């Protein structure tokens, strides 16, 4: 396989090429008719290229190993110990695939519409893809932060420049809120990242490094770990978004062009969740345990509040938006169950949620075009007769959204709730309310937009071939994952367990010797290897029985 840098920078390069080509032609605006523009075609080429590479990395993934694969490691800023280090692991391989898939679908969708200044638009679009891929693949804390911040910039432009004003929600207001929220989060994360690198070098000895796996964060005092954890958590929770940090979401969702929103909701929200799993849990297991209840309560609040909002809203985008708040709540719940099942479910659900929310948003766009541009579900209805193919695709997406058993989303939710069940029974039971409410909001959206009587301004027609080309491949992936979720599970199992291992043993969820049946795996009991083998001697108050993250085999579950 080619180096990861090609995967990351290919989209941006082709986006830039597109922008330059339209500059060269001096065309600010291309023609009247909707259709293909050179920048759009180049962007699609880049996105498809990235998709091909991402599929290659999934196919090429070495299942047995917990080592990083396809590593690129170049010293970037020597004085500060910042590496340009990329690598594929079980945690990010499917998220990279998801990113590439959704960007390809969204770019194709964007090509079906006419944009002002297409060169610039597609450049931002592709830069966003590069940044997201970079954030997922970065194996250096500083590099992660850099990509994390980089990916916000094109979105600011795309909301501000190509967004829509809807009533009292102007794109300026939406952008402003988005900037403030995410900017505050970014700054906190930046501070936290710098503190992690500098302070752990200071306390643990040695020189400064930001490379994940080399940072000796265990050397940090628990107080320091706690505040760093909170800073990271704030940044990630805003990104997801989680209640009560979701204030930017409704305006942002309504103002964003729907093609941009597809990737924003489908992929960007996952970067936050991924950050918890890939960075926060391995680096600050003590703090994760310390704040476990807080995080679980935030997750629960997001699930309940998001669900209740989702079935009360009439703006279809907001139904999707709040349902994302609820779904991301489930993901947070799984991560902070602090055990293998919860984390495994959370990781699977990140992929699943992306796979359903992007087509759902695209469908909302299709619906709006049939309801005279209105995205209010009160203006929709009844088109299923004339649009049977569309209604069927929508039904599949709706059922996957509500995590119906048989969908991959259900397997994710099953694992998340099982993890939560083992960690905090009461919270898991309350979280099940969200499962019921999900069926209400998902079916409500479906029924009111394609069933019931035909809306007053509705013109019924089935989806075009072009729209189908966007929707059908994603739906096929949903169906494939429904039949074979094991594809993702077996690739991520070891990496997930490594990631939560220390926190899991710290949280006392599975203390040694409490497995009801030694020698047989019950409840995912982690039976840690002999602690004398532990190579970590520093920071025993946190990492008492911890093992080095690279060798989790002894602690692995389900051998």
């Amino acid at each position, binding site marked *: 396989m080619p180096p990861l840098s090609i995967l990351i920078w290919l989209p941006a390069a082709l986006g830039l090429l597109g922008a330059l080509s339209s500059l060269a032609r001096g065309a600010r605006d291309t023609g009247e008719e909707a259709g293909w523009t050179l920048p759009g075609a180049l962007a699609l080429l880049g996105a498809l290229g990235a998709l091909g590479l991402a599929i290659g990395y999934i196919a090429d993934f070495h299942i047995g190993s917990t080592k990083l694969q396809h590593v690129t490691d170049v010293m970037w800023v020597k004085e500060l110990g910042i590496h340009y280090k990329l690598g594929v692991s079980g945690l990010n391989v499917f998220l990279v695939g998801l990113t590439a898939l959704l960007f390809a679908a969204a770019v194709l969708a964007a090509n079906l519409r006419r944009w002002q200044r297409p060169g610039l638009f597609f450049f931002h679009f592709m830069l966003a893809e590069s940044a997201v891929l970079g954030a997922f693949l970065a194996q250096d804390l500083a590099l992660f932060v850099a990509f994390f911040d980089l990916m916000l910039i094109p979105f600011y432009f795309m909301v501000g420049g190509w967004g829509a004003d809807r009533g009292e929600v102007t794109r300026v207001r939406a952008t402003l809120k988005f900037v403030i929220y995410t900017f505050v989060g970014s700054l906190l994360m930046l501070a936290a990242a710098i503190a992690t690198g500098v302070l752990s070098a200071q306390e643990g000895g040695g020189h400064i490094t930001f490379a994940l796996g080399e940072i000796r964060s265990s050397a940090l005092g628990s107080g320091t770990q706690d505040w760093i954890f909170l800073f990271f958590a704030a940044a990630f929770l805003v990104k997801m978004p989680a209640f009560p940090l979701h204030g930017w979401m409704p305006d942002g969702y309504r103002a964003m062009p729907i093609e941009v929103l597809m990737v924003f909701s489908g992929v960007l929200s996952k970067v936050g969740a991924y950050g918890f799993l890939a960075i926060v849990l391995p680096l600050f297991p003590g703090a994760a345990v310390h704040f476990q209840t807080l995080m679980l309560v935030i997750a629960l609040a997001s699930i309940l509040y998001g669900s209740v909002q989702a079935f009360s809203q009439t703006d279809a985008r907001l139904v999707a938006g709040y349902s994302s708040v609820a779904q991301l709540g489930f993901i947070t719940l799984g991560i902070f169950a602090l055990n293998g099942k919860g984390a495994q479910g959370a990781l699977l659900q990140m992929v699943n949620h992306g796979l359903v929310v992007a087509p759902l948003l695209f469908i909302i766009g299709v619906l709006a075009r049939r309801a005279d541009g209105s995205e209010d579900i009160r203006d929709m209805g009844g088109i299923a007769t004339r649009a049977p193919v569309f209604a069927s695709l929508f039904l599949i997406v709706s059922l996957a959204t509500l995590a119906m058993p048989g969908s991959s989303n259900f397997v994710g939710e099953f694992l998340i709730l099982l993890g939560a069940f083992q960690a905090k029974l009461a919270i898991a039971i309350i979280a099940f309310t969200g499962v019921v409410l999900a*069926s209400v909001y998902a079916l409500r959206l479906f029924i009111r937009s394609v069933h019931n009587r035909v809306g007053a301004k509705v013109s019924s027609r089935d989806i075009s071939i072009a729209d189908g080309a966007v929707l059908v491949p994603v739906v096929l992936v949903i169906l494939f994952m429904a039949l074979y979720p094991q594809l993702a599970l077996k690739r991520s199992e070891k990496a997930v367990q490594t990631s939560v291992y220390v926190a899991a043993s710290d949280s006392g969820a599975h203390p040694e010797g409490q497995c009801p049946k030694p020698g047989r795996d019950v409840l995912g009991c982690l039976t840690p290897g002999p602690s004398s083998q532990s190579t970590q001697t520093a920071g025993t108050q946190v990492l008492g029985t911890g093992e080095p993250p690279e060798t989790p085999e002894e602690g692995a579950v389900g051998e």
Partner: protein
Amino acid sequence: MSATTWGWLVLAFPLAGTLVSALGFRRLPGRSAGWVGTGAIALSFVASIGALIALQGHAPEHRELVSSLWSYASSVGIDAKVSILVDPLSVFMILTVTGVSTLIHLYSISYMEGDRGFVRYFAYLNFFVLSMLLLVLAGNFLLLIVGWAFVGAASYLLISFWYRRTTATRAGIKAFVINVVGDVGLVLGTYFIFKHTGTLDLLGSFHAVSNAAHPAFGHATNDGDLVAGCVLLLVGAFAKSAQIPLHTWLPDAMEGPTPVSSLIHAATMVTAGVYLIARMHPLFERAPAAQDVGAIVGAATLLIAGTIGLAQTDIKRVIAYSTMSQIGYMIMGVSVGAYAAGLFHLMTHAFFKALLFMAAGSIIGAMAGEQSLDRMGGFRRALPFTYASFVIGGLALSGIPPFSGFFSKDEILLVTGERGGWHWALYVVGYLGALLTAIYTFRLIFRAFHGEPVAEAQELEAGHVHHAEHPTNPATGEVEDTDVGFPGPVHAIAERALPMRVAMGLLAVGAIGAGLIQIPKVDFVIDDFLRPTFADSHLYEPHTRNGLLALGLILGTVIGLAGIALAYRIWVARPGTASALRSAVPGGRALYRLFLNKWYFDELIDALVVRPVGMLGRFSRDSFERLFVQDTLVGGTTGVVRAGSAAVRAAQSGFVRYYAALLVLGVAGVGFYFLLQT
């Protein structure tokens, strides 16, 4: 071929049928989709017989066969494959399901003939049967849950089949959501059982609890986790099988086409709860507290549903409440250990209930979609075949010997009585319910078929089928949508459609004769066949006392006949007795209103759950959310920023400058701080 290969084929045919109808919906001409669908299920039935023969070839102790295709979710300590379990219980279920479903498909070819959604209908119907077969064949909890939820989804699709009717979509979402509540119960129950046994495999978990050698389990009963798990499984069973208080979706489910009601009530869906309890008997027998919950709820349901059936006037709803009541018997039966009897009743009920719904469909066709008993009457001569079917089904339902329902129902009550103690109360309730059953069943028959022929019946006798001029939805009064369809525009009548008559005739044979395969002291086909599945049960086939047996048989006959006689007296011999009774008996009117309003369960759930949640939603949308979205909470921050940078509001370039500037400042500040520290 091995039994499991046959088992996979049982699933493969309906799947193929679904796909053919779903993908070829534009190309399938005429009624071909109907024949494809019917053929698929018929082949599935043949494969079920193959599985039966293959299974009987094994020694009784080796009749539990598992086969898996691929790994579904095997990670972090759970292990679920796509696997099926073929044993006598699952073979019994697939035979019943596919057998009755084939006939319902056949009936549907005529019944749905003129409907615009003909192909869609058969795709859904095949999917429904597929889901049910998956449920009963599933080899582990995860796949069981999948089949369980698929059944719910399929029922949703079929209940809101005529989706332009708001009543249909509302009934659909209601059924779906209540079924999801049941799914949640099933999933949570699975968690508790998983916690107790450490596996998601069905047989594995049964072995784990029966492994007496293990100190953790032993012979202890009523372990907290196990009871919690089993009670939660019951929640799932109650939702799917329409037991109190999760039953309110079932009567509303009558919004679907009548053959769908037949399918839901007879062959699929509502029997799933009965199957679940029977399947999980090794767990339930170690959690007697959960068994008691099941038995009591079953008994309460059979009685309450029976009383509601007395007062309803919608012909399909009366039959629907009758189903609830009969499922109550089965739930009670399998909860007290009457496994074979409960499953026997499941089978006989499938025959006569499918028959009753088909006959009801025929009369609704003659009434042009009208379902109210108040408008019907005197169809005896106009619809002789339908009338005969209805009487046969009614006699079987009322438990009159030698019709099938007699043997199966009495066997449940016999075993219940044998348990002794407080189970005698259930025994009494069971016979009380039997009286109600006979009364409401023959009330239905007498009111629809006896008395003066109504205009529609007279028209039919003259050779014309009644057509409504402007069909309206009786529930809402809105004019029916002809685009998607509505009940009854086709006027399918059994007397005029051969496929309907064939289906009903075969079911009538079953309703009459199926009871003969298991007559006390004579033959024990069901008992013997199912014995390998229940080999570990200490409740299976208790010794029955001759006295109790004789009492039961006499009691059953007398009560059934008395009910019919009473119904005859009230609705035929002296019409008007019903209203006279209402005013004569003290509290009669109040009682009548209670029954008519279905014991106010809908209103109760509405007031306790639906409305509060809706209000919460509106409040959070209109008031609470403003705190986050409007400029009150974030107002301070935004205000500061606005004041500081006018450019922010103006143009996008402003944002970049602003962002870049702050970023640089922030980085510099943080960097400075740490530089000072080092």
